[in-house]
């Protein structure tokens, strides 16, 4: 006997993500899922963002890492609440792991939650966490062909940050072609050119982030 199912394989994760979103909303916390390849600059961006928002917006961080807690320690030094999720070899965060981490985040004391996903451009694209925005960091040394190799990630992103632009003079990277390719399949996307080494472009990124947060609140 054949039974029609027609159900999403990741439906359970979607439901859990929705529950996370409700929890965040009820605490008026805006959550951002930061995704990139390993080493593209997620932790550096979090540190830059915290620095820029000091005294203005209260930030919390969830650090997804395959095993170490180095990134979490860097962030804790900034006096920001940080919860570490060790995926134990897993290649992405999922809504369930995020839910457990959320119980350790002081949601009442923060307005912005930055979630550093596991460094990987394939798997995290499939798993919603309950975030309000998906942000993708793609760095200059990785090359400008990344959108073609990982279309789903680029298609879903609300913002793409081209990081390490301080290295542009030394590497072959066509920012215009890169941006045009992404815009071609994702009309609404915002693209920023930044450097966490020189802080160039960080102001524009943070200002976009604050606008997104205020749009959510009103």
């Amino acid at each position, binding site marked *: 006997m054949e039974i029609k199912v027609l159900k999403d*394989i990741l439906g359970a994760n979607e439901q859990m993500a929705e529950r996370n979103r409700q929890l965040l909303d009820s605490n008026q916390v805006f959550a951002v899922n930061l995704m990139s390849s390993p080493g593209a600059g997620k932790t550096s961006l979090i540190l830059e963002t915290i620095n820029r928002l000091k005294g203005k917006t209260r930030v919390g961080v969830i650090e997804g890492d395959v095993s170490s807690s180095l990134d979490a320690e860097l962030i804790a030094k900034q006096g920001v609440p940080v919860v570490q999720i060790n995926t134990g070899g897993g290649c992405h965060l*999922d809504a369930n792991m995020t839910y457990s981490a959320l119980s350790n985040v002081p949601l009442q004391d923060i307005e912005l939650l930055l979630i550093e996903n596991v460094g990987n451009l*394939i798997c995290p694209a499939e798993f919603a966490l309950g975030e309000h925005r998906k942000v993708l960091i793609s760095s200059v040394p990785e090359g400008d062909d990344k959108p073609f190799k*990982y279309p789903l990630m680029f298609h879903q992103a609300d913002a793409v940050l081209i990081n390490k632009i301080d290295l542009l003079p030394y590497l072959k990277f066509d920012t215009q072609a890169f941006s045009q390719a992404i815009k071609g399949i994702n009309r609404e996307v915002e693209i920023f050119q930044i450097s966490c080494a020189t802080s160039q472009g960080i102001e524009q990124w943070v200002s976009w982030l604050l606008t997104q947060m205020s749009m959510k609140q009103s």
Partner: protein
Amino acid sequence: MHELAITQNMLDLVLEQAKKAEARKVGRINLVIGEMTGVVDGCVQFYFGFLSEGTIAEKAALSFTVVPTTARCRGCDKLFKLKEFDWTCPYCQGNNMEIVAGQELFVESIEVE
């Protein structure tokens, strides 16, 4: 690597549906997978082999329908399959499009006894 998590989720969904139908055995699982998801069918097959052991879906045949990444050109409105390294419309060379298929990841149906 995400195939492990995806296969586990798929198996949970299948077992839930089979239980609802009071099935004794799942003989076949028909899956629809969009090309954009990057899910490798061989990996799903591999993980399914050991995850399903001891369940009523053990030894079920998996069949995969792969949906190509398909775009609709916003310039000329034509549908086309997105090429790997060239995201332009083959009809008008425009580069403003909407992805209309290729993100699927669902269980179409199961065959049970």
